[in-house]
């Protein structure tokens, strides 16, 4: 097991290194660190001087090493747009995105689990067939269009929910770092449509996944044996089959977080939601390379981290992997 953790962590580090290399290459070739630092109103001579001082004329690898050293210390460059350290800008925008993710995750778990299990147990029932057809439709609808439709229906026509922004937020820690929308009714109202939109594209995926995993589990020998032992159907389905279904589903959940991230960018755009995705789009529009690269590095690291943790956790939950890893 220990060997497994080590191996996985090493793999994660390698990927992070690659990400940082790509990020740095972009920054080096495309970015303009001098402008990031001092703005645009400097003479060419001053620029050259500053460039030398900053070590911008040093060989690539030395600059890269410097970049990594700074990055590890938390310095990912300076955002030209916000005139603040890039990392700080990202961190300030993160809570909005995280709350969006939490909201959607809740919806996904609460809806996909029961529906997925039900359609595995009774595949021919009306509800199951309806769910499966709906899921094909769900997969075919782009997340941003769902968002727009929801806005059109609830905000424009029915006028019961707000159409943009986060609404009233509460400063959780009193230092401006985490403004939450969960603690006010207005904030919650603003959360509803974006969370539904975001979950709309993941729901069909999970329902199908849970359904197919469970159907496969239901065909296994040990489930058949459970029947032979005379256990009650409820026990067989909800305890034996379910636990075995959850394991692969959990890994997929971890992996799918990545895809969800992409969809948050789209959702944040539609709802003018001031999260990381929105910030990313701004950075692109205004060619703020530092911020862009910082975003890439942060998001990339988060992916790698989440994937690695999920893999290791899976090893803990699934007893068979635990022993197998030591062989």
């Amino acid at each position, binding site marked *: 097991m220990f060997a497994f953790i080590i191996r996985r962590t090493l793999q994660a580090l390698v990927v992070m290194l690659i990400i940082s290399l790509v990020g740095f290459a972009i920054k080096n070739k495309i970015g303009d660190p001098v402008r990031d630092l001092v703005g645009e109103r400097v003479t060419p001579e001053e620029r050259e001087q500053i460039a030398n001082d900053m070590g911008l004329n040093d060989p690539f690898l030395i600059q890269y090493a410097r970049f990594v050293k700074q990055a590890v210390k938390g310095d990912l460059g300076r955002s030209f747009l916000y005139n603040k350290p890039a990392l700080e800008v990202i961190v300030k925008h993160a809570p909005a995105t995280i709350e969006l993710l939490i909201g959607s995750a809740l919806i996904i778990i609460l809806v996909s689990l029961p529906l997925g299990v039900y359609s595995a147990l009774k595949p021919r029932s009306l509800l199951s067939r309806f769910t499966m057809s709906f899921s094909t439709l769900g997969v075919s609808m*782009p997340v941003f269009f769902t968002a727009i439709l929801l806005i059109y229906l609830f905000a*424009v026509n029915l006028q019961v929910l707000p159409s943009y922004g986060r609404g009233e937020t509460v400063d959780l820690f009193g230092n401006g770092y985490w403004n939450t929308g969960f603690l006010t009714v207005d904030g919650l109202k603003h959360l509803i449509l974006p969370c539904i939109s975001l979950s709309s594209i993941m729901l069909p995926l999970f329902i199908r996944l849970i359904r197919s995993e469970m159907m496969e589990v239901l065909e296994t020998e040990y489930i058949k044996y459970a029947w032979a032992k005379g256990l009650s159907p409820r026990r067989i389905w909800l305890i034996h089959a379910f636990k075995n279904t959850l394991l692969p589903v959990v890994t997929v959940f971890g992996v799918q977080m990545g*895809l969800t991230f992409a969809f948050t*960018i*789209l959702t944040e*755009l539609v709802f003018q939601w001031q999260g990381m995705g929105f910030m990313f789009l701004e950075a692109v529009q205004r060619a703020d390379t530092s911020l862009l690269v910082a975003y890439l590095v942060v998001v990339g690291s988060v*992916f790698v981290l989440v994937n690695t943790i999920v893999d290791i956790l899976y090893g803990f939950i699934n007893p068979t992997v635990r022993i197998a890893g030591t062989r």
Partner: protein
Amino acid sequence: MKTKLQKFKESYFFYSFKRDRVAMASFIVLVIFLLMAITAPWISSMNPYDAENIDIMNSEIPPMWMADGSPEFILGTDNMGRDMLSTMFYGLRTSIIIGLGAVALQAFIGIVLGLSAGYMGGKTDAILMRIADIQFSFPYLIMAIFIAAIFQVAFGVGSYERLAVPLLTIIIGLSNWPIFARTIRASVMGEKNKEYVEAARVIGFPRFTIMFRHVLPNSLTSVMVIFTIQVASAVQSEAALSFLGFGMPVTRPSLGSLIRAGQEYIFSGSWWITIFPGLWLVIFVLVINLLGDWLRDVLNPKLYKG
């Protein structure tokens, strides 16, 4: 001796197709869409990409059946004065070109790499699969967005727009080849140990000939299903990229860019600018997905339809 057509008509494939009404309906709709895309220049009342045709005075006209509508613009016009229906035809065309192109690229890279990895095994396999794994752990959409964003920042919005179609095709093409690689590799590894491969090797065929001429055709069924799904996914990726502003420019809009442009107008009442292209896109992707589902069921027959 039966002709190929006769054999096809009698095959299980065709039989199950005829029996499945959803598949048939989807196929018909898909064919209609394809025809519309191909004949777009002829069936459109105007060419929305040509600035000469557009009169800004015509903007925001509602669809024909509403008050203020006009039969000249069946589904109304957008904010620039372009006929909605024509723009949708052209947009569909662009989406299909990019979608098919991107998937062709994905398939090409994926098949070549997957075939090599699966057949040659050993180091080649290990290296190629490592790369695929790493790329796989990054969701394809994020990769596409990043690559597009970097391109735009590096080369400026102007040149980006000029090269939009091939650029988008390449970007989407590069972001999702691992899925083809993995599928082919799995299939090839299964085929590798079959007797006909052994026989071919004994006869003395060179490696690449065996790989491409003998093993590949037998692994293609798994690819067919992935192909359809990927086309749907590529079309959606292009729509997403366009919606974000990394796709087709406003002057030559695809369905995604149309939705983007029309979004703010739902508040002022011109809902058709964003809703129609959206529905168009959804139906198109839906029929592809339905066909893909049916294809998957047919190519993996289980004795009992459960």
